[in-house]
């Protein structure tokens, strides 16, 4: 793991992987959209609006996946003081927040035709809403602390605390949902998904993951260069001061 701790070596790795990542993304996207959205079967109950499933469900998957990725990177950063893991976590947060927001918007756009209202306190949607707040909190803490190094460790602790609480929040929201459950509500991902829908859905899931890696690389490189500019300025200031006072 420390082999890639060196920023320049990691950058070369990213350059090698990037074409493959983009390739997978485009291929999966093409298959998912064509086989699912355009030519896929309509749902017996919901009719055409089930096509939103192909972007709503993968977005919700990514929202959860990225938060767990941030927690894993934060754990590595805290235990082994790995600077790149920290940069990966920090670069991932905005991507996760966007996916969470998209999951919420597509969820409500899907809810409208199915239940006639834009927002329904369905257990899963509510959990995604709370997850969105966790993302906002994580990013807000990065902004609030000036000292870069301390901010890294404080946000890592927050991410771990957040992750540990997610199952509890999820359980409490589902428990709360069944408590106030209106009559039979059509579950968001419909009845069991038959294969003709499943494969395009998985393809879209993979496409979103590849998209995440691709954008993550770009944002990480931006953060790494920002660190280098900062370090260069620091050294220039020190050098101008003749090494020290």
């Amino acid at each position, binding site marked *: 793991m420390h082999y890639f*701790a*060196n*920023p*320049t070596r990691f950058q070369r790795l990213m350059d090698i992987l990037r074409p493959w990542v983009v390739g997978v993304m485009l291929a999966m996207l093409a298959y998912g959209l064509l086989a699912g959205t355009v030519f896929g079967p309509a749902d017996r109950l919901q009719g055409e609006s089930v096509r939103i499933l192909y972007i709503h469900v993968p977005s919700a998957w990514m929202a959860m996946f990225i938060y767990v990725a941030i927690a894993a990177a934060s754990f590595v950063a805290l235990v082994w003081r790995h600077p790149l893991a920290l940069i990966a976590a920090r670069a991932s947060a905005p991507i996760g927040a966007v996916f969470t927001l998209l999951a919420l918007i597509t969820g409500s756009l899907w809810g409208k035709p199915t239940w006639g209202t834009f927002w329904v306190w369905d257990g899963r949607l509510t959990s995604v809403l709370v997850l969105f707040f966790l993302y906002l909190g994580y990013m807000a803490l990065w902004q609030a602390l000036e*000292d*870069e*190094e*301390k901010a890294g460790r404080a946000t890592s602790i927050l991410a771990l605390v957040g992750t540990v609480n997610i199952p509890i929040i999820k359980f409490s929201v589902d428990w709360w949902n069944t408590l106030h459950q209106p009559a039979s509500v059509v579950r968001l991902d419909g009845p069991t998904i038959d294969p003709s829908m499943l494969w395009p859905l998985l393809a879209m899931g993979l496409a979103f993951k590849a998209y995440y890696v691709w954008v993550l690389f770009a944002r990480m490189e931006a953060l*790494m260069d920002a*660190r*280098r500019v*900062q*370090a*260069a300025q*620091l*050294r*220039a200031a*020190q*050098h101008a001061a003749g*090494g*020290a*006072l």
Partner: protein
Amino acid sequence: MLTLDSVAIRRGDKLLLTGVSFALRAGEAVHLKAANGVGKSSLLRAVAELLPVAAGSIAHQNAHGPAEAADQVALLDEQPGLKASESLRGNLTSLSILLSGRTPGAGELDAVADRLGLAPLFDSPVRYFSTGQRRRAVLARLLLSARTLWLLDEPYTGLDQAGRALLDTLIAEHRNAGGAVLMTHHGDVPDMSVIDLMGHVPQVAPDTGDDGERW
């Protein structure tokens, strides 16, 4: 009491000090001489195990063998560490229980207060103390903490002439009783072995080439 082996101190991305090594035995005192901003306060916090070292090692020992900083260190830095809304008596009672683990007798408290000339202010809140009185109150905490290793960061600041003389005698008494002192001061200090930290500041070359491990 304390051994430092090629210790390096880092603040964020900036490497402040490298290669600091010395040992401190009972009764001895070391004066870390350095201008402000070089990192002497950070070095003291590292010795107090509040700040991890960037490299090298800091080892505490007491009579029975290896020890923790929290067992034997008393730290005096620019912050008073006193609750402004509490009386000096309340502050010192709590702090001596917290630091030395035993409740000070009333007589003991009064003796320390007299020693430092704070008796008249003993029951008034620390908020109304002048800077000099506040610094003397911090010295009272130092005496009551019953700790063997004193880490003093610019202890003379805020003390008048009489206060400085008092501090010197307290240090001498502490050393005679088998304690040790590690002190930072930009000026000169009588009969202490001096370590000039300016020699330990890494020279910095501007960043020109590939940054390799560094940023």
